């Protein structure tokens, strides 16, 4: 579903991604872990071209998205992204947050978009919040709305960049619950997270990144219990 070959990304002189090669299959849930500054966010952002790619190729569903002739807006609509800071639109109600891209990008009729948005809100357990503004929601609720908004585009892939890192501990569970549900339904997901419990329970594979490289990847249990590289061991001893 996603094939990343020799991906490189530099910011000026700073080489953030050095040579990333990753293959992600349909319906797979891949968890990306690694120390701060190792390039996890940058990697994720390259997958829907929020960050331009310096070198290498990313192919999604047979289409090389790094090809200059590619229509990036169309691609991005197929790849949903959830951010650490939620990034809901504060001037729109919860319902409008979800329907805005459906109406402007997908060209849905307003009633159809609203009906679908209500379905999605029900799915994340927030149908009673449809008409409020994001400011009045808790962090966990905001993140669930952000997930519903991304799902409104009916993406083939969902990217999560530390979706629970900005949340109070008691709200982490409700967001992870929604993500587990998505995984169960067969969504292809790439998740950057420090939630090792989630990685173990839901992840099909864990990728450990350090210093712009994929150092090691394996099934969660195997990677956590039997890491092959010194750097992986050092990192895991700190977070497990």
């Amino acid at each position, binding site marked *: 579903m996603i094939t990343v070959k020799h991906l490189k990304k530099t910011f000026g002189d700073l080489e953030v991604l050095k040579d990333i090669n990753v293959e992600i299959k349909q319906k797979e849930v891949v968890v990306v872990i690694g120390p701060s500054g190792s390039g996890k966010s940058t990697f994720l952002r390259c997958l829907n071209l929020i960050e331009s790619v310096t070198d290498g190729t990313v192919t999604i569903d047979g289409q090389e998205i790094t090809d200059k002739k590619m229509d990036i*807006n169309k691609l*991005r609509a197929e790849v949903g992204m959830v951010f650490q800071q939620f*990034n809901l639109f*504060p001037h729109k109600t919860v319902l409008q947050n979800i329907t805005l891209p459906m109406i402007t990008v997908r060209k849905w009729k307003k009633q159809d978009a609203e009906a679908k948005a209500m379905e999605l809100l029900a799915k994340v357990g927030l149908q009673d919040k449809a008409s409020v503004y994001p400011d009045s929601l808790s962090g966990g609720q905001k993140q669930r709305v*952000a997930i519903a*908004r991304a799902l409104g585009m009916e993406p083939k892939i969902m990217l999560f960049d530390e979706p629970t890192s900005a949340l109070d501990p008691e709200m982490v569970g409700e967001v992870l619950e929604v993500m587990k549900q998505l995984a169960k339904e067969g969504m292809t997901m790439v998740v950057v997270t420090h939630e090792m419990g989630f990685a173990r329970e839901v992840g099909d594979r864990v990728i450990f990144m350090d210093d712009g490289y994929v150092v090691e990847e394996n099934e969660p249990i195997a990677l956590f219990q039997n890491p092959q590289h010194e750097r992986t061991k050092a990192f895991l001893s700190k977070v497990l």
Partner: protein
Amino acid sequence: MDFRFEIITEYMPFFLEGMMLTILLSVVGVLVGCILGFFIALGKMSPVLLIRFPFTWYINFLRGTPLLVQLFLFHYAVLPALLGDTTAVTSVIVTLSLNSSAYVAEIFRAGLQSIDKGQSEAAHSLGMNKFQVMRYVLLPQAFKRSIPPLGNEFIVLLKDSSLGAMIAAPELLYWGRAAASQYLRVWEPYLMVALIYLVLTLSLTYLLNYLERRFDVK
């Protein structure tokens, strides 16, 4: 000192007429300034240096030179050269519009740049194109944040329109000067003119405060 109220009563119709022109000049100035200012802000934010350059200097010139100098330049030189002829009112409107467009452009630019980068990233990640991101996500938020500084700009412009008196545009201060020179009195006409300006700017302040509350939907 005796205060001759009859000067004020006699000139009241002219003061009111002048006040109407003052309002007209500043309303047109701020409206045209907003429209022009919006495009100038976009131009100045262009990533292409060659596009950015003229907008930067347009703003530099209009903000870095005295409004009165600009007024003389437009009234006596630029507009006669372009149109063959001009009236005082035309010159004031053109000068105020261009001058406020430079300030408004900076207000809009600051407003747009104050919006968190995550907003446009989220919108782009949903597949919205540049125009849609601008139209539905950035502009509404930037506009709301621009209301207080735009209000200030409006008030500044209203007061600055008094410079029109220097080229005999019959706005409020023009009639104050007319009364002063007819009666050789300074207190009555200028106090009255000041009072009318104060009423205008205070009303505007209240109106703007009301608008700020209205637009603050959250």
